[in-house]
């Protein structure tokens, strides 16, 4: 019996499990293989929808479904916490005390927000990375009557890189519609030397910020929040007073991969950019090429959990999952990975809202940066349709 264990029931874990189960269908039927997903909650949340709760266009209960309802009938679900991964013994220790043995392991444990790492974040800053926080931001926007809005980022990487810019654009549109724009000063704090990490997207977004009268401050990562004075202090010691602060909280990978010695303190798993196998060390020693760092033959990572220089977004996991499924299934079946999913080439595709009912599309891979089309209504509607049909498409491998 070959056991494929998938840790995490998000986009990456769910899709990988479903695709692997399809590839191993006959082996599973004969009792020679098994696919198990382990998830702490047993609930699958569609996180890109949270931003729309903040914008008053979505409800939290529409964004969660039971994980079991999204899994192939041949995938087992274990609802339990993950305590420790032992790559030598090929076991996963669970919070209940149970232990799972694996032959192939897929780590799709995602990322987590750690607002507690920035003093005063919880009392002062709004965000949209949980349904609850997004609902609170909605309340704050409803009661906002003008003043200074600062939108910032407390650390890179974070989930859904375009989101803070999208929120800036959407809030600006809303304030204009509510007649509050003339009495509102908006500032976008970018932690890097341009508006967005990818140069071509930055070139698209920067003029839009200008057109909408949103002040752009560069090299202005949120370093401190002064709760008494309601002032953001950047990493470069510049001060930005606010009446409403919207801030991306610091992010880290799952604690279990740090505790298991697989990732450094940041929690991002060192991952091969093509095979998606986890590397045995985070950084090669002096004189050692990255290619010479050994990879775990039977441990894979995907989605937000990796340290790959890609968007931490469901889309990344969506395009990585077929590669992990192909490689895991090939190992179980005793063959070489083959076909178009033998190797991951960095493909990511996501929509980008610019406000006023318009959007654009970011599509790129390791070798080809995005060339976003001029924002229009089609891409905005594309995002809405994608969000509404997600449950029937992505987790089940239909797109």
């Amino acid at each position, binding site marked *: 019996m070959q056991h494929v264990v998938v840790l995490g029931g998000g986009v990456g874990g769910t899709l990988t499990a479903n695709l692997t189960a399809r590839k191993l269908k006959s082996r599973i039927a004969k009792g020679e293989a098994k696919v198990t997903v382990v998830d702490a909650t047993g609930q699958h949340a569609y996180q890109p929808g949270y931003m729309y709760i903040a914008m008053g266009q979505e409800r939290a209960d529409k964004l969660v479904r039971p994980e079991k309802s999204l899994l192939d009938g041949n995938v087992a679900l274990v609802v339990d916490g993950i305590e420790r991964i032992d790559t030598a013994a090929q076991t996963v220790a669970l919070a209940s005390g149970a232990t799972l043995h694996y032959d192939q392991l897929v780590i799709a444990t995602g990322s987590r927000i750690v607002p507690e790492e920035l003093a005063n974040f919880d009392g002062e800053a709004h965000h949209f990375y949980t349904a609850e926080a997004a609902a609170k931001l909605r309340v704050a926007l409803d009661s906002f009557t003008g003043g200074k809005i600062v939108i910032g980022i407390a650390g890179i990487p974070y989930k859904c890189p375009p989101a803070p810019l999208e929120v800036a654009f959407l809030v600006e549109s809303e304030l204009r519609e509510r007649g509050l724009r003339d009495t509102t000063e908006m500032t976008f704090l970018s932690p*890097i030397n341009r508006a967005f990490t990818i140069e071509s997207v930055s070139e698209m977004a920067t003029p839009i910020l200008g057109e909408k009268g949103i002040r752009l401050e560069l090299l202005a990562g949120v370093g401190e929040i002064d709760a008494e004075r309601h002032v953001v202090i950047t990493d470069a010691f510049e001060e930005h007073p606010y009446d409403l602060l919207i801030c991306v909280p610091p992010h880290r990978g799952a604690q279990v991969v740090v505790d298991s010695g697989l990732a450094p303190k940041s929690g991002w798993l060192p991952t091969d950019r093509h095979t998606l196998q986890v590397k045995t060390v985070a950084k090669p020693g002096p004189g050692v090429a990255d290619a010479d760092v050994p990879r775990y033959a039977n441990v894979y990572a995907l989605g937000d959990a990796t340290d790959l220089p890609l968007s931490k977004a469901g889309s990344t996991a969506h395009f990585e999952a077929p590669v992990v499924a192909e490689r895991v299934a090939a190992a179980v079946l005793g063959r070489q990975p083959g076909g178009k999913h033998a190797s991951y080439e960095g493909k990511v595709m996501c929509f980008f809202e610019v406000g006023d009912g318009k959007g654009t599309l970011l599509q790129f891979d390791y070798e080809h940066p995005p060339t976003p089309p001029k924002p229009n209504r089609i891409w905005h509607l594309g995002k809405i349709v994608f969000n509404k049909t997600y449950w029937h498409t992505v987790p089940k491998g239909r797109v």
Partner: protein
Amino acid sequence: MTEAATPQVSRTIDARGSFCPGPLMELIRGIKESEVGDVLSVLSTDKGSKTDIPKWIGKAGHNLIGVFTRDGYDEIIVEKVR
């Protein structure tokens, strides 16, 4: 500043292989963890680092000691002054 006059480096941040904005973010983290007077060296293979990192150092008011081109990477040395 010439190489000979470079003060002793207290901490080296090897960000080689990390893409923009990784090296800058690693430096900001390193500076936060350091004491005033510490000298930090960032090693980067990302082409943007030798322009972005000095800009951030200038904005933050730290002391840029030098940007040196090494064999296949750049080394940026900075003194934390506040």
